[in-house]
């Protein structure tokens, strides 16, 4: 591998064209910014499609959506919510059980934009590595926030939580919340690569637990076509999830089953060999197409 930072996805752009090599990234930005725009349309334009924020929102007076993690904290501190909030949390839990819990991180959470920004600058400046922090830190954080909630009897984490602070701040007024967001940005930029979303955030940890058995998974229908360009590793925010499925470690099937995968689809974008595709937990996706049936069987054959 050359020491100079190579442009990630250069091969894919040459092979598939810029648009196809950025398809999922663009869709994801549309989703993230679209959700923000719908929330902002009310206070800015008077167009009240949805009221509230990511903790709890009410869409068109019919659809309640609640963050199950925040609601769990409220219940742990001894308070029972009203029916709408329980229904809202139920809808969200079922949804992320199907599409992969951490799809929230990649497609909804506004902090992802901050983290991706830090990541982009890191790549441009050639900043590598940083302090070592285990990826399991987030589960410790999750346990800690729930414990502190029980001990103090108040939603302690909500006073600092950058996820709700950024989203609520953008819609209701940021105040000094910027400080926390800038801290997250600098932490990601200089201290730990993919530090917040990839190591610390308890919201992501909570959604990863919800999505452990989710239906929507990243498939590798053409994993034998991999030319080891390493672009998927370089672009993946949770690159440790790729190897087992790509390299058939311990006979792993060509599906990413790790709950840390955020289903962002950037690996599909940057791969010039079309190794990746969205699919279900069990079967092949339609994306994979008929021509990719053969390589999969080849790959499985190679393993057994």
């Amino acid at each position, binding site marked *: 591998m050359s020491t100079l930072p190579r442009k990630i996805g250069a091969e894919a752009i040459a092979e598939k064209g810029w648009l196809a090599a950025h398809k999922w990234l663009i869709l994801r930005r549309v989703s993230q910014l679209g959700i923000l725009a719908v929330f902002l349309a*009310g206070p800015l334009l008077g167009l009240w499609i949805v009221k509230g924020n990511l903790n709890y929102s009410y869409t068109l007076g019919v659809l309640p959506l609640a963050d199950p993690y925040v609601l769990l904290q409220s219940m742990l501190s001894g308070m029972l919510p009203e029916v709408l909030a329980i229904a809202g949390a139920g809808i969200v839990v079922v949804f992320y059980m199907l599409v992969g819990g951490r799809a929230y991180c990649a497609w909804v959470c506004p902090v992802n934009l901050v983290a991706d920004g830090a990541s982009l600058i890191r790549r441009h400046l050639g900043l590598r590595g940083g302090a070592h922090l285990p990826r399991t830190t987030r589960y410790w954080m999750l346990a800690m926030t729930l414990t502190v909630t029980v001990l103090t009897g108040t939603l302690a984490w909500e006073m600092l939580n950058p996820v709700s602070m950024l989203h609520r701040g953008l819609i209701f007024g940021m105040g000094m919340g910027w400080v926390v967001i800038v801290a997250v940005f600098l932490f990601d930029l200089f201290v730990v690569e993919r530090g917040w979303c990839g190591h610390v955030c308890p919201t992501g940890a909570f959604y990863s637990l919800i999505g452990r058995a989710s239906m929507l998974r990243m498939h590798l229908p053409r994993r034998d076509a991999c030319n080891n360009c390493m672009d998927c590793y370089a672009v993946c925010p949770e690159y440790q999830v790729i190897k087992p499925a790509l390299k058939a470690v311990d006979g792993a099937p060509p599906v990413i089953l790790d709950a840390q995968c955020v289903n962002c689809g950037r690996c599909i974008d940057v791969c010039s060999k079309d190794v990746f595709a969205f699919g279900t937990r069990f079967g092949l996706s339609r994306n994979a197409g008929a021509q990719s049936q053969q390589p999969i069987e080849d790959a499985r054959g190679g393993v057994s």
Partner: protein
Amino acid sequence: MSTSPHPDTAGRRRFIAETARMACGVGMIGVGLGLYARHAAALPPAAIRPPGALPEEQFSSACIRCGLCVRDCPYDILHLAKPQDPMATGTPYFVARQAPCEMCETIPCIKACPTAALDHALKEINKAKMGLAVLVAQETCLNFLGLRCDICYRVCPVIDKAITLDPQTNVRTGHHTMFIPVVHSEHCTGCGKCEKSCPTEVAAIKVFPLYMAKGQLSAHYRLGWVEKEKAGGSLVAPDIEHRYHTPEGMRYEYGKGLSTVNPSEAASGAPAQGPTVKALKGDKL
């Protein structure tokens, strides 16, 4: 242990070391977070919660900081606390001097609340207890200065119940009446209209959270006149009749002084309406 440890032992060691590191590192953050949360648990004096808000400790755990009450307030008086505010971040409040609660009959903020943070059992806005108005500045209250400002009394949505005007002699002039605004806690909703409307530079009447504004008698205190009414009469044994030691054939009456006793009266004994009789009948002595 001079020999290199068994691979299993090494793995176990690494696991224990990592667990300890995480538990201690994240635990420290937890301690800081917990202390910070306790600090911000009390509500600052100027911040009033929306109608139906539970007591602060329960409120800050029931509220999920969604801002739906803020959105459904037709008068836009509610704000969500920002991180620098000395209260739980993201929780709703209003500042009476800026914009008081307009006391909507339908209480849309409570209807919007997806949790029990705002008590859905509250159906009458006049029963709300957002705070309590206190006339804090007797030195600058215009009515206390002898004027007929009366604004707080006039704007009160629960007029003549939550605020009454009690006439008192103006001892400065000697022949005027001062109409003193008196807040009655059982009727005051804490909406803050009085504070908002007070015409002085700094409001003489202010709304505070209940825990700050309301006093409480010790549990063993009894109000004599209330107990007397309940019992239907004086609870203490009637005082023995007071007797003046006057010269024989003389008597003393308050305001009249000494006088000679009428011989026929002296024969009939004690006067018919003595204090003992009054006390036994339950009258004020």
